[in-house]
């Protein structure tokens, strides 16, 4: 379409026909342009710049002939320089990008009622979606498989997913391969290993042989972290213990009924088990890997390409909410906003303990850890690489993996960085960082070596 082409090209008409001259018909041109747009998410700024420049040139030279003559005589770069001098193209572009009207204003976003979804949920009652021009309905969903199917079916425009899920869906693990993308991480930390109260003297994982543990989903950080933790203590998670996929709300009931010995679960479930007096906090997930991602905000590539402005507005709202949630002084207010039956549906005391980090540990003590759960939206691609190494380690992926390519395709670090800069936040300059999991450093540049370095893993 004409708005997205170079207005400084002397040989094109700004009014009609196939304007770029590369296609025989407008229809063909449009098709190519929309195909291009699939890839071009990262050059959105350029596109906006083009749109704004086009509008300015059109206003200055209503006659195409005059514009062409002008461009031919002075040259495109001079024209651009001259134009920028008396018209702040850069600023105009930014303003335009901010105000890019959403293609679709009424959106549906699915969530699972756990504190990981805090930014997604709170953005509705606290007005973050409305602030970015969207009318979002957040819909509570019964489980991870259902949220996956409903997002694939387009009943939801975007959804709360476990951080490894979009990678698994994009790779076609346990579902048809559908390209998904993650513009923002929901929360970091905020999980925990809870054991039944009767195990309060079995604090050493070496004594856990034969126990039964619940995890929320196979493609979850919970699964990878629990396996990692057990393996570091010499237990093979596939043979020495039993791991069961159990929906979070059923975990507490199962723990009470003695069906499982413990779980690595998302919070408010951990705290709920303590609150109801059936378990105690053995370890916060933060103690396994401080700053680990847990849940993500995900959308299909199709949604991103068909409604790029809605998607950008949605991402902005989530980043905004996440930034608000990361401040400790706001946490009490958030706990109250998300506790009602319409959202998480849990006692406010439980949510407060999770979000403020002052909590009962289930053994009679009160502990404080302000970073028990934290919020940081930046989708580090090295997180994705780590998840892929664990999928490989535990046999969820067979054969060779192009770690970097998958990570970059699914985790939209570049786009989020741009959005965050536009919003006046300071995102990190790179998409890869090294971190340590239980004291062992992970180098995202050498994933294969990392997988090979583990003694306990599934033989592939």
């Amino acid at each position, binding site marked *: 379409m004409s708005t997205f082409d170079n207005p400084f090209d002397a040989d094109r008409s700004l009014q009609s026909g196939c304007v770029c001259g590369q296609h025989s018909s407008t229809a063909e041109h449009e098709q190519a342009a929309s195909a291009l747009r699939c890839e071009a998410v990262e050059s959105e700024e350029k596109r906006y710049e083009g749109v704004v420049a086009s509008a300015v040139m059109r206003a200055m030279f209503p006659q195409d002939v005059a514009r062409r003559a002008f461009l031919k005589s002075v040259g495109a770069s001079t024209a651009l320089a001259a134009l920028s001098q008396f018209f702040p193209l850069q600023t105009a572009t930014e303003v335009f990008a901010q105000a890019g009207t959403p293609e679709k204003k009424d959106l549906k976003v699915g969530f699972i009622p756990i504190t990981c979804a805090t930014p997604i949920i709170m953005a509705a009652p606290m007005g973050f979606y409305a602030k970015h021009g969207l009318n979002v309905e*957040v819909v509570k969903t019964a489980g991870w498989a259902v949220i996956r199917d409903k997002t694939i079916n387009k*009943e939801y425009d975007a959804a709360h997913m476990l951080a490894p899920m979009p990678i698994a869906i994009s790779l076609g693990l346990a579902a048809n391969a559908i390209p998904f993308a993650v513009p923002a991480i929901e929360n970091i930390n905020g999980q925990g290993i809870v054991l039944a109260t009767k195990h309060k003297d079995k604090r050493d994982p070496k004594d856990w042989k034969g126990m039964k543990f619940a995890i929320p989903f196979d493609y979850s950080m919970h699964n990878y972290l629990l396996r990692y933790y057990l393996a570091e203590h010499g237990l093979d998670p596939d043979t020495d213990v039993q791991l069961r996929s159990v929906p979070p709300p059923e975990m507490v*009931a199962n723990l009470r009924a003695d069906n499982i010995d413990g779980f690595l679960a998302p919070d408010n479930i951990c705290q*709920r088990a303590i609150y109801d007096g059936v378990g105690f906090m053995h370890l916060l997930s933060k103690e396994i890997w401080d700053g680990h991602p847990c849940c993500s905000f995900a959308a299909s590539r199709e949604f991103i390409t068909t409604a790029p402005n809605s998607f950008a507005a949605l991402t902005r709202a989530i980043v905004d909410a996440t930034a608000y949630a990361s401040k400790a002084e706001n946490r009490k207010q958030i706990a109250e906003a998300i506790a009602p039956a319409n959202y998480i549906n849990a006692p406010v005391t439980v949510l407060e303990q999770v979000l403020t980090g002052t909590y009962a540990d289930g053994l009679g003590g009160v502990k404080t850890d302000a970073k028990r759960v934290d919020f940081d939206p930046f989708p580090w691609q090295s997180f994705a690489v780590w998840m892929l190494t664990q999928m490989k380690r535990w046999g969820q992926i067979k054969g060779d993996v192009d770690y970097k390519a998958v990570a970059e395709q699914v985790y939209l670090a570049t786009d989020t960085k741009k959005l965050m800069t536009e919003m006046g936040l300071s995102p990190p300059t790179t998409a890869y960082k090294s971190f340590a999991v239980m004291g062992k450093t992970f180098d995202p540049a050498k994933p294969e070596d990392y997988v090979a370095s583990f003694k306990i893993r599934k033989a592939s």
Partner: protein
Amino acid sequence: MTSSLRLRAGLVSIVLLAAFLGIWHLATRSTGTTTTMSPEYAKLMGLTATQGKSAMPGPLDVGAKLWEHLRRPFYDNGPNDKGLGIQLGYSIARVGLGYLLAVLVAIPLGFLIGMSPLLSKALDPFIQVLKPISPLAWMPLALYTIKDSSISAIFVIFICSIWPMLLNTVFGVASVRKEWINVARTLEVGTVRRAFTVILPAAAPTILTGMRISIGIAWLVIVAAEMLVGGTGIGYFVWNEWNNLSITNVIIAILLIGIVGMLLDQVLARFTRMVTFPE
């Protein structure tokens, strides 16, 4: 005599109910503070842990909560929190729609099959295989192909309520007394007229019995289906409260599901009585 029997039966019912509530109340009494904990710690814990309150709510808790729900049955606090009246409405609407579709398909089809011994024999193996499938087993398939969770739920209701109606219609139509059909033939009544004036009234009690079985099954299935797909309905309400470990609300929902199921059954029973004839 009958009135005194009814009176005595009523008395026994009330005594049974009172005994049940009494035992329930005694069994769920709190045991008092069990362990000593610091007040700071106790503030962060639930009543179950601090006062030894039973995890199972007592009849008084349930009664109070039920009253709260009955006082405002139609509130709407957004997409995930609606009053019980609205939730029941959604469920009844889904059941009604799926059931109506099943009636529209099952009764004409049953008529055709029942009137033709050839079709009856030819379709029998298919019906026999499809009939025992648990309706919820269709759910993943429906979600995958229909790509819409609420239509999938209606489809599941449709598929579960069609079989009893179909089989009963076939049976009812096939077992109309031969003499009546022969009399109609002798009087040279046309096929269409025969179907409506002789076979339909004769088969109606059997057909309605099938419909009564179907509505019961449909109501059983909707709760499970809504627990799976979520969104709205009484099944979703049960799931949502289960999620919050609020057994009180789950008990209330169970009670209401029973009452609505009974009412639906009574309506069909009344229709059956209307078409029954003495032979």
